[in-house]
């Protein structure tokens, strides 16, 4: 009986959390005008969320691309298909690895920072303070961060893919002595802008909304103690990772199901 009760309680808690998250999402969307009223807030957050994530994104992209190049070369060369290496690297980066790995790194680098920042603002009564100064904290604090996240993510994913392709290029042409013309011309011929690149951008846009939403909600909803904030930060990374991977499966099935 106790077990059923506990299960029911968890279910109710889960649904309540979902409701609060949805409510916050709507309130952020309704207050979108604020980013035009305070553009400096947005640029500040674009720097904190986007620019400061550039290094980890670029370095990771480089290595992911290089590993793809190596593994691809080992296998493709067995079938004398190493001319297709560029296509393999570019397609997998643009369609999947770019958006997904960027989102995972973004959740770890920027998402956790957002949660900790908002959670600490709550714990130190800064959010209450804003409310008592008749300033809506959702509008003033959350909205610029939310849209900074949404704008940054697709751009970061594009940087990741671009650097990754150069990583693959470095391995296949520089290290393995592949033909430079083949590498680029195959990519040009077989990677479709609308089908591959645009779909990748759509994916990273969805991940941007999801990850930033989760991060901000967890911070805003955190128990205002040091333990509460640390738990919320962990939850941000875990929930973001699961949401990104799950959504990626769904979107891949929808976008590339008829290949």
């Amino acid at each position: 009986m106790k077990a059923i009760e506990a299960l029911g309680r968890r279910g109710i808690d889960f649904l309540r959390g979902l409701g609060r998250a949805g409510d916050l999402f709507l309130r952020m969307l309704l207050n979108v005008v604020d980013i035009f009223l305070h553009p400096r807030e947005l640029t500040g957050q674009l720097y904190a969320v986007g620019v400061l994530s550039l290094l980890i994104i670029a370095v990771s992209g480089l290595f992911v691309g290089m590993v793809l190049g190596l593994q691809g070369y080992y296998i493709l060369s067995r079938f004398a298909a190493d001319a297709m290496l560029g296509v393999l690297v570019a397609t997998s980066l643009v369609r999947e690895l770019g958006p997904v790995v960027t989102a995972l790194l973004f959740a770890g680098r920027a998402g956790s920072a957002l949660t900790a920042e908002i959670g600490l603002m709550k714990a130190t009564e800064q959010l209450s303070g804003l409310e008592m100064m008749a300033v809506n904290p959702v509008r003033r604090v959350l909205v610029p961060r939310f849209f900074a996240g949404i704008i940054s993510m697709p751009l970061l994913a594009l940087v990741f893919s671009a650097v990754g392709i150069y990583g693959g290029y470095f391995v296949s042409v520089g290290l393995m002595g592949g033909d430079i013309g083949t590498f680029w011309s195959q990519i040009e011929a077989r990677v479709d802008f609308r089908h591959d690149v645009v779909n990748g951008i759509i994916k990273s846009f969805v991940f941007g909304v999801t990850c930033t939403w989760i991060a901000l909600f967890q911070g805003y909803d955190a128990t205002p103690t040091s333990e509460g904030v640390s738990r919320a930060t962990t939850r941000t990374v875990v929930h973001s990772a699961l949401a990104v991977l799950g959504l990626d499966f769904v979107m891949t099935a929808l976008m590339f199901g008829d290949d």
Partner: protein
Amino acid sequence: MMDLAHQAGALLLAWFTLREYMAIRRGAVTAIMGPSGTGKTTLLKLIGGQICASAGTIMVDGQNISELRIRDLYELRKRMGMMFQSGALLTDLSVYENVAFPLREHTKLPESMIRKLVLMKLEAVGLRGVRELMPSELSGGMARRVALARAIALDPMMIMYDEPFSGQDPISMGVIVSLIKRLNDAADLTSIVVSHDVPETASIADRIFVISEGQVIEQGTPDALMQSQKAWTYQFMHGESDGPVPFHLPAPSLASDFLGEAE
């Protein structure tokens, strides 16, 4: 209800039940005292409309807080100042910018005017010289004084202090005590001080409400409460360790606990 508010000349009325109410007079320093965890801070949050009352009514300046629309509530909050226990300064802004924040948000004053106002408010709390510092570089007492300057930036009609004296050294405690009184008299404010520091609060309050577990136990002037015949009030005001609030919390008898029978 409105009549009653009018009669008492009260700025703020809090109803707990039909019979019991708290009327806070305009222009006075009113203290709300009681042990920790008794709902003092909750009461301030109720007054500010940050949480909704599940029962009872709170009227501020003739307006029922729980029935206000969000926009009207925000309008009313511009006329309320609040000093939080931690100061609640925005950590990414300097002292100057923190005090300027409400002015920039709610007025369209030119920069030169904002500068003059901010310097005036900082002068009032004696911290004009530290305007370039960041909140992390301030001591706890200074952070509260900056928070006070910020709370009066928009010249509110009332100001609420949440535990202004807790954890302060004697000097900054004395500074804050005299600031609260001076500001109240000079700026024609209505001050509500929530605290459990008896001597400091009693020295500046015009009227004290002693509450416990959400109930008003007793109210009156500091002197009257100091001489109160009620055992509970007496214990609280004089800080006695035993009385109606027992020193020992309920437990099985010592002998049976030692013998392990209570397990």
